[in-house]
């Protein structure tokens, strides 16, 4: 039987949405969220810098949530779009759209709310679970009043004997004004319900963490029975015993320069993977693994977009 044909450009390295690297932050956030769930938290906030990997981490996490009895917890992920009109109705509409429920311009807010409530209830019953998790990404796009629909969802699902936990995910700098508003007494019910628990989601903060990510390039395989990610692009070098983790020291040293100059707290995963992918796909196959110097690494980081973004933030 012949081997199925694999398109060269089908490799996950060419598709950032399919590239999944486990980071300590992801593991830590998983433990944190489980702790919230197992202690009966009704909600929590996960805040981090832009492009640090929060969405990727939460999308991977929602399918892995378990009860204390190791039963899967049904979960739903929704992204809040940026709209000029921020209304209660728009929240329910977005929730229903994300669940592929029927939405028409004539639908009322209470109909949409109930439709989504029953959708979550159905998922919970199918999973034979009395818990449900709703992950709301891009929370910085919400007005304070737009948190009330989530409280309504919680209340209605409580009537159905289902415990809903809402996890809000947002960018730390953009969320500041929102947090300040929620501190007002008028939103005490929101604050107490959804923001008692919060945690930060950083990017790569240590050399060991970065080395761990590089090691995944040396271990993950594509296809499942094929070469490692590194070997896919550098077969000869890998056969000679070379590994990508060899570059961890140099890469971290170069990044530290940017970290000091631009006051970066962590290396966002988008920029990290962009830099490594550029190195792996273009520079190393062209110039060889023996001629890797700081200039090459600087160029990779520059191409990743880390510098222009930080220029805008510093400005």
């Amino acid at each position, binding site marked *: 039987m012949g081997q199925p044909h694999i398109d060269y450009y089908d490799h996950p390295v060419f598709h950032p949405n399919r590239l999944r690297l486990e980071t300590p932050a992801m593991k830590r956030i998983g433990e944190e969220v489980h702790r919230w769930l197992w202690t009966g938290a009704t909600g929590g906030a996960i805040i981090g810098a832009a492009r640090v990997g929060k969405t990727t981490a939460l999308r991977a996490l929602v399918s892995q949530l378990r009860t204390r009895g190791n039963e899967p917890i049904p979960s739903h992920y929704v992204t809040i779009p940026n709209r000029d009109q921020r209304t209660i109705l728009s929240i329910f509409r977005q929730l229903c759209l994300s669940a592929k429920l029927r939405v028409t311009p004539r639908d009322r807010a209470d109909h949409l709310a109930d439709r989504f409530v029953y959708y979550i209830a159905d998922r*919970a019953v199918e999973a034979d679970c009395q818990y449900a998790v709703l992950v709301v990404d891009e929370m910085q796009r919400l007005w304070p009043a737009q948190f009330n629909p989530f409280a309504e969802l919680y209340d209605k699902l409580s009537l159905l004997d289902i415990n809903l936990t809402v996890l809000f995910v947002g960018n730390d700098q953009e969320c500041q004004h929102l947090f300040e508003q929620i501190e007002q007494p008028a939103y005490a019910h929101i604050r107490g319900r959804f923001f008692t628990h919060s945690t930060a989601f950083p990017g790569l903060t240590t050399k060991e963490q970065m080395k761990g990510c590089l090691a995944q390039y040396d271990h993950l395989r594509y296809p499942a029975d094929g070469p490692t990610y590194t070997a896919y692009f550098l077969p000869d070098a890998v056969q000679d015993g070379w590994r990508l983790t060899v570059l961890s020291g140099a890469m971290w040293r170069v990044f530290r320069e940017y970290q000091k100059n631009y006051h970066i707290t962590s290396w966002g995963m988008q920029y990290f993977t962009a830099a490594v992918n550029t190195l792996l796909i273009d520079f190393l196959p062209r110039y060889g693994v023996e001629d890797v110097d700081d200039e090459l690494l600087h160029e990779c980081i520059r191409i990743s977009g880390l510098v222009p973004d930080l220029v805008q933030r510093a400005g």
Partner: protein
Amino acid sequence: MKPFYVNVGHCFARPYESRYAMLRRCLVVNPGVPLSTIDARLRALLGIRGSILSRVCALQLSPAPADWPRDLYVNQSYRRQCPQCAQQLYHTDIYALPWLVRCPIHHCAFTEKCPVCHQPWPDRVALAKRDCPGCGRASIKYLTNLLQSTDYRPIGEIVDFIKRRGPEYSLGTGRGHPEFINFDHWWREIGVCDPLFPACQAHRYPVLSSARMAELHIAYKPVRHRTTSLIPADSASELPFRRWIDTDLAVYVIKSQWYLAADFEAMKYIVSWIARHTASHPVYIHGFRNRDTNYFVKAPDCCPYCLALSLWFFNAAVRQCIVRYAGDVNHYPFCQQGQMGDFLIAREPHLMTYRGGIFYMAKNFAMWFYRRGLEIMFMDILQRVFKWRKQIKMLRKHDSVLCEQQRCWTNDAPDERCSSAIIGDRFYFFYENEHPLDHYTPPTIPGIDSLCEAHRRHLSAIRRKFDIFDYEIPQPDFSYAAFLTLFQEFNALVQRISDHRCGWR
């Protein structure tokens, strides 16, 4: 249409619920979505075969069990509901059973209207448009009490009671021969909706005590039963009930005295019943062979009892005598023109299991069964005759073709309802009344004596010689000797008919 997800409402699912309840649940958990839109989406998802009810049922985590009794899918079962169950979005098909008088869960009476909006319980189309919390698409704020634990075990007990089935078999009548011919049966096996069902089922499978049946609000209508042993056909050395000889020359054969005795017993009972209801009107057996509707329209009114008894006797007698000339002897054009349909037939019973085993019944039971068939056969004919007489009167008035409304004969079952079962190695037959005739009140016919006499004179004036049959039943004592005389005269008639046919050749 853009595809969308249809909520099912699993959180409100309850055991033994009907498909109507599943649909109502689906509508509640998809608020604001029209029924037609949901149906169109489900058609795209599940195919166009079946109804929306079946499609909604297919979405359930636990669809209706495969052994749910087929006759329990009562058409329009939603018309009768428990108001308290309805407020909990619950309905089950067993609520349509007429013998279930109250809700076994809430012990309240069933209603045909919603107590909240006072409208009749909605069908599936009206259901989608109704917002009433009692019967329609209730909002979630009305459903807070749904998760209170409700004990549905009583429903399960009733379902289990209904579902019980024994060995499957086919009950028929005919000659004691492997190649059975089944005629129109005089009995009709009741279904689960029949008022007699609880008593029959309780006899067959006593899983519920009478006290428990009362607690479950099951109305118990007593039934009688008879039982017999089953005799395998292979072990019967000869056919137990009749001998027959079929030759080219003989037009009648010597029949078993057993059959004649049974015929006599039945006829005697019928004649005495007629006497009670007609103030001892003299009853005649006439030959109405070859008479058409036109004859009866032009002739004086005939006596319904004489006509019915004559038809009955000729049908019973000819099938005991000779099968070959049955069609000739019992040729009644007026029956075909009046669309009376085929008369019921009484024969000895047999039983065939679905594994192919054939069994007869013991003689006493078989004779009782046959006699009962004769009595019901007469009652059936009499009822048809009464209806047909009205038709003749209308024809005399309007002088036109048969009115459409009279064409369709709907014969109410004259005690044909029964049930049966094989329990162990015995056959049980359940029925309501020992003598069905005793529970039938015929219409009163004033001046029946003169009416009968007028028609008798008319009939004798126009009858052909070979076709004459005019026998007065001796009353008040109709003896076996008189019955045999009648039977011999009938044989003589058959002989004359046969000779006349041969003469035509």
